[in-house]
């Protein structure tokens, strides 16, 4: 035979056309090139020009075609015809659906707007949905941050004006030592992977601090398999070592943090613990040039870290003194925490020493002159090339806020925030808490709310409390239970509404949150609350309206379902007013646009809100003549004006000399400009203020020009968070707004204005001997919560989820491959398959999050492995801690922000027989969309 080879066409046509839009297989929001053939989606790849992903795409993104075509897509509005939870619906017209919604909501608005609870889950249009809710007049609006990661976000904002993900990222190009705390995947999915790749290519070092060694932690050079809930101890021990050795950046601390701000130390004063302020209210420092008091931001001032100021018999010392007093104490020594953290003291010291070595011996200097807000000119940009990133592993605990603060403090004392090689903010961040609004909750029937719902409280005066002390909001955000709940508490809405606490509501209106399943604690209980009836047979929660794009578990519990489009069929806007897609080097926003038209009777939810807003006559949604203001969301995106010159999109606005970024007038062709530009807009931060942003005058001026804020407002990092001290002081009896008695103790302890550690609350409520094992979940990289399951490609990778068990527990129970176990918490028990993992903290078990599915959902067959072998850990977690004998049910959340403490969970585990399927098995729901086909072979162009 000869070596004749077939003649291959090596240059086949790739597609008819490429349409560039933004991925929404998760919230990372990468740019995608959608290759079209014959008008259909044929192949999706990453957009090389896009600031977020620069061409790469994750598994979910590449599988978008299977989500877009999933058999689980809803097809038309649904009206419930069977009992709630049965899944029995009839398809109705949009006119009928909108009429029902209007007739339900209009009377509420006219009489008691708070009886609408509008919660929007995994929303990426919060600036729009909150605008709608504000117009409606209900105080009961929030998105999903409360059960997600408000601890991280709020601790970042209060401490330094931003945390990670949409706020900031490591300086991947310069960092030499990168430490990752408690991250499996994060929202910044592709950027983190790209960053790790960059670090690796340069041979820089990475340490993973995580009880579980998979994914990012598996590629880390060193793995610190910490005991869950103890990161605060570990971090503060690092702080202790570094301070004790003087391996801290004193210059940076003095200039750019409130370490130099003077604090009143007179225990008898009602100002105890508060800053010394001048007549203008500016916190005071001692100027090293004069030895005298000066405002922190005075021109040329050289703040001192060490002086004492005495006036009228009161001693004031800089925050740094309080830090030294606290953290130099042996209570924070590695030896004191080693056992609890499960990390040998020597190892903690080694890591501290390495941080010191890299930060100071390997410092970087960039030859870029810059001027700070005191007018001081710096000839160089000095970098401490250690960087950190963290997420829910440290935040989803009841001590998460303080732990996140501790991490931010660690970064700051090393001088690594906003310096080369450290952590960099992404414009429009940083933005300190004081530059954010405060929460608003004043209700007037028939009128809008008095301001934005969510914000950053500065003290007890900002809490949302009724005159009788009860909560203004259905989720009890901004109350003494969780005063700084900056994202609301979506996870408490259903149980509070069910209990009528603080009041009963009429309609629960939800969007994009699978609340009867994976986003709730105590999922079974939630299902019950959603179906519970009064004596007269009516539902305890009278009306439920829900918007989803797919046949999720939650759909079955709605009375009215508003079917959304898929992400390739609608307009969306990823706005600077919301959660933008910026990078440290550039400000950017993006859109989605209908690269294909829906083939079903579905509508983009935001467009539906435009319609519904007009029907309800909401201000902002109607013209003066009462007609509908925005035809659809695209119309809103283009024409809405938030502040002068500022609209949802910052790119391609109309300026005097043509189109410009930042501020500008409405441009009717804006969306087309975005489409032509690949679906996004980016403008780079000027090089001379690419670092030191919060303190750099050039950056401040640029930020004002771009419209991030209206006046220059430099600030310094708040190592000491004064508002926390105000809450603490209230708990000590100071001031007129006083917490209820039972909360005083908790507030005094947890509201420490300097970062502290206290044990996770569950430890104090369950017997740690009996429930000796920590149970966690992790995000699988190839699945997005419950969305991934409907995807024929992705579900093959994660079709069910074993419980991973460390060697010690594996052997103690005599487990073998294929075994099952009964796992119990104080709250409930599940029976699930187990698998062995050696690279795991020896007291921790875990599973992949949200793989388990309910029978009948997602257009899957009844025998789908997700429903027979898959399971949720959520059945073991309760939104309230078990009773402790004090007659109270404490909330299973962070006492500062209310963040759901998912990872405080403690369990016990025992071998079980092999059941037919994972337990508890919920009854099947009827699928409103039927079932998917048996086999597929998807090829668009033949």
């Amino acid at each position, binding site marked *: *035979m000869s070596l004749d080879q077939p003649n291959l066409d090596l240059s086949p046509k790739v597609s008819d056309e490429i349409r560039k839009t933004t991925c929404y297989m998760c919230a990372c929001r990468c740019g995608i090139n959608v290759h079209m053939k014959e008008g259909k989606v044929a192949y999706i790849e990453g957009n090389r020009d896009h600031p977020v992903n620069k061409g790469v795409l994750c598994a979910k993104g590449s599988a978008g075609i299977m989500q877009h075509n999933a058999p689980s897509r809803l097809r038309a509005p649904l009206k419930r015809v069977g009992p709630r939870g049965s899944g029995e619906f009839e398809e109705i017209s949009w006119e009928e659906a909108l009429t029902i919604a209007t007739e339900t909501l209009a009377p509420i608005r006219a009489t008691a707007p708070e009886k609408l609870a509008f919660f929007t889950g995994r929303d990426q249009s919060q600036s729009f949905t909150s605008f709608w809710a504000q117009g409606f007049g209900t105080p009961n609006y929030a998105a999903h941050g409360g059960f997600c990661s408000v601890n991280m976000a709020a601790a970042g904002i209060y401490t330094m004006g931003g945390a990670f993900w949409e706020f900031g990222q490591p300086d991947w190009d310069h960092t030499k030592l990168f430490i990752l705390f408690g991250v499996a995947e994060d929202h910044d999915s592709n950027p983190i992977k790209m960053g790790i790749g960059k670090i690796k290519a340069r041979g820089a070092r990475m340490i993973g601090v995580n009880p579980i060694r998979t994914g990012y932690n598996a590629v880390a050079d060193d793995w610190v398999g910490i005991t869950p809930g103890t990161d605060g101890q570990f971090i503060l021990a690092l702080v202790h070592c570094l301070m004790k050795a003087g391996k801290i950046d004193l210059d940076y601390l003095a200039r750019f943090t409130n370490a130099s701000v003077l604090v009143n130390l007179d225990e008898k004063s009602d100002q105890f613990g508060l800053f010394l302020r001048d007549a203008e209210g500016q916190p005071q420092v001692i100027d090293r040039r004069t030895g005298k008091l000066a405002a922190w931001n005075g021109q040329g001032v050289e703040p001192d870290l060490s002086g004492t100021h005495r006036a009228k018999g009161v001693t004031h010392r800089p925050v740094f003194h309080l830090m030294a007093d606290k953290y130099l104490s042996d209570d924070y020594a590695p030896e004191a925490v080693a056992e609890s953290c499960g990390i040998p003291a020597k190892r903690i010291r080694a890591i501290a020493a390495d941080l010191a070595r890299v930060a100071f011996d390997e410092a970087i200097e960039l030859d870029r002159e810059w001027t700070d807000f005191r007018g001081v000119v710096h000839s160089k940009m000095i970098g401490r090339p250690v960087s950190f990133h963290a997420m829910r592993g440290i935040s989803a605990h009841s001590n998460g806020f303080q732990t996140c603060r501790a991490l931010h403090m660690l970064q700051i004392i090393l001088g690594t925030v906003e310096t080369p090689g450290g952590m960099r903010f992404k414009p429009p961040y940083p933005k300190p808490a004081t530059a954010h609004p405060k929460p608003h909750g004043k209700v007037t029937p028939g009128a809008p709310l008095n301001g934005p719902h969510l914000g950053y409280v500065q003290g007890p005066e900002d809490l949302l409390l009724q005159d009788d002390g009860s909560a203004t909001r259905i989720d009890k955000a901004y109350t003494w239970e969780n005063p700084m709940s900056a994202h609301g508490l979506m996870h408490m809405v259903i149980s509070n509404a069910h209990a009528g606490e603080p009041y009963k509501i009429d309609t629960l209106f939800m969007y994009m949150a699978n609340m009867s399943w994976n986003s709730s604690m105590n999922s079974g209980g939630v299902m019950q609350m959603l179906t519970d009836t009064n004596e007269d047979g009516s539902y305890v929660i009278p009306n439920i309206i829900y918007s989803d794009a797919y046949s999720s578990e939650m759909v079955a519990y709605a009375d009215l379902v508003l079917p959304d489009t898929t992400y390739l069929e609608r307009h969306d806007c990823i706005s600077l007013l919301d959660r933008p897609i910026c990078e440290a080097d550039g400000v950017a926003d993006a859109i989605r646009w209908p690269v294909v038209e829906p083939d079903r009777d579905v509508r983009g939810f935001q467009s539906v809100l435009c319609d519904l807003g007009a029907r309800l006559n909401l201000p902002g949604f109607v013209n003066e003549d009462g007609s509908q203001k925005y035809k659809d969301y695209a119309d809103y995106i283009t024409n809405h004006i938030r502040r002068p010159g500022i609209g949802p999109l910052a790119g391609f606005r109309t300026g005097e000399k043509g189109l410009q970024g930042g501020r500008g007038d409405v441009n009717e062709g804006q969306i087309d400009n975005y489409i032509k530009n690949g679906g996004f807009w980016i403008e780079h931060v000027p090089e001379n203020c690419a670092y030191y942003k919060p303190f750099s005058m050039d950056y401040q001026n640029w930020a004002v020009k771009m419209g991030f804020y209206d006046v220059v407002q430099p600030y310094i990092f708040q190592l000491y968070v004064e508002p926390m001290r105000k809450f603490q002081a209230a708990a000590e009896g100071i001031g007129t707004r006083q917490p209820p008695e039972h909360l005083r103790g908790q507030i005094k302890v947890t509201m420490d204005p300097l970062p502290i550690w206290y044990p996770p609350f569950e430890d104090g409520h369950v017997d740690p001997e009996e429930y000796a094992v920590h149970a966690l979940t992790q995000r699988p990289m190839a699945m997005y919560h419950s969305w991934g399951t409907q995807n024929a490609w992705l579900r*093959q*990778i994660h*079709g*069910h*989820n074993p419980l991973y068990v460390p060697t010690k527990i594996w052997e103690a129970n005599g487990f073998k491959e294929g075994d099952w176990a009964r796992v119990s918490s104080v709250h409930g028990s599940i029976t699930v398959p187990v698998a062995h993992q*050696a690279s795991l903290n020896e007291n921790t078990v875990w599973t992949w999050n949200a793989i388990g599915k309910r029978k009948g959902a997602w257009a899957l067959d009844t025998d789908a*492995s997700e429903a027979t072998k898959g399971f949720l850990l959520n059945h073991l977690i309760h939104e309230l801690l078990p009773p402790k004998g004090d007659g109270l049910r404490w909330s299973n959340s962070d006492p500062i922000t209310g963040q759901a403490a998912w990872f405080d969970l403690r369990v016990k585990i025992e071998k079980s027989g092999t059941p037919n399927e994972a337990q508890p098995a919920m009854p099947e729901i009827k699928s409103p969309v039927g079932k998917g086909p048996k086999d597929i072979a998807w090829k668009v162009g033949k």
Partner: protein
Amino acid sequence: MHPAPSVIIFTTFSGLGFGLLFWLGLGMPAATGWDAFVFFAIAYLGAVGGLLASTFHLGHPERAIKALSQWKTSWLSREGIAAVATLLIMAVFGGGLVLFEMRLLPLGWLGAAGCLATIFTTSMIYAQLKTVPRWNHWSTPALFVALSLGGGALLSGNFEIAILLLLASGALQIFAWMSGDGRFKASGTTMESATGLGHIGSVRAFEPPHTGTNYLMREFIHVVGRKHAMQLRVISMLLGFVVPIALLLGSFNHWLALIAVASHVVGVITLRWLFFAQAEHVVGLYYGKR
């Protein structure tokens, strides 16, 4: 390896068929006319039936003819060619015997050689596979040939030869098992060499690439319980060799011979099931299985 019925049937029956044809080609027995017809019919039923069965597992049986093209490198191609050529030659030879009582002996010898070649090439399809260490050994062709010829001798009534060959096959089989059991290990292919991670430590499969199954796992990973395998080995030995030999050693009787043949066939099917089921493909290592 997955013991697919199609390959078990194929190797068993085409082996017997070609074995029988071999003896017919040598003129043992020297049957003609109806006698020859019956013998040839049985042989062709086995050989052709087996070959047909082997096409059941093809994705595209209609293209089977293409399989004859790569004789230069492919044992499967060679086997196809050998089988087709042999069947053609033996058809002429057999036709001569049946229709014309004509004994074209040199043609018969050629056919017999073809039978040997076919059996050998069949065996080489398996023996060539380094990926299946148990098969990758001279004993595989030796056993295939011995078994075919032994079975053929049995069918063709060459009982003395059959007894000798069955004894030899049995012994070879025992040797193949004994040596084969350690061959995977001896091959040097391990999870460490498969992953290249042995320099760090001992390797264990953690998560497979998917929670379901796939073609590779269905095709290559088949775990037979040790106890189960041992029982089947004993049974196959008894049925395949001990019973037939015992029956042949006793007084001759057509019925007993038939029972001997039936027992042998069932024995060989069992052997072949074990041949596949016990063969471990190195790819299993990637799944932490063998």
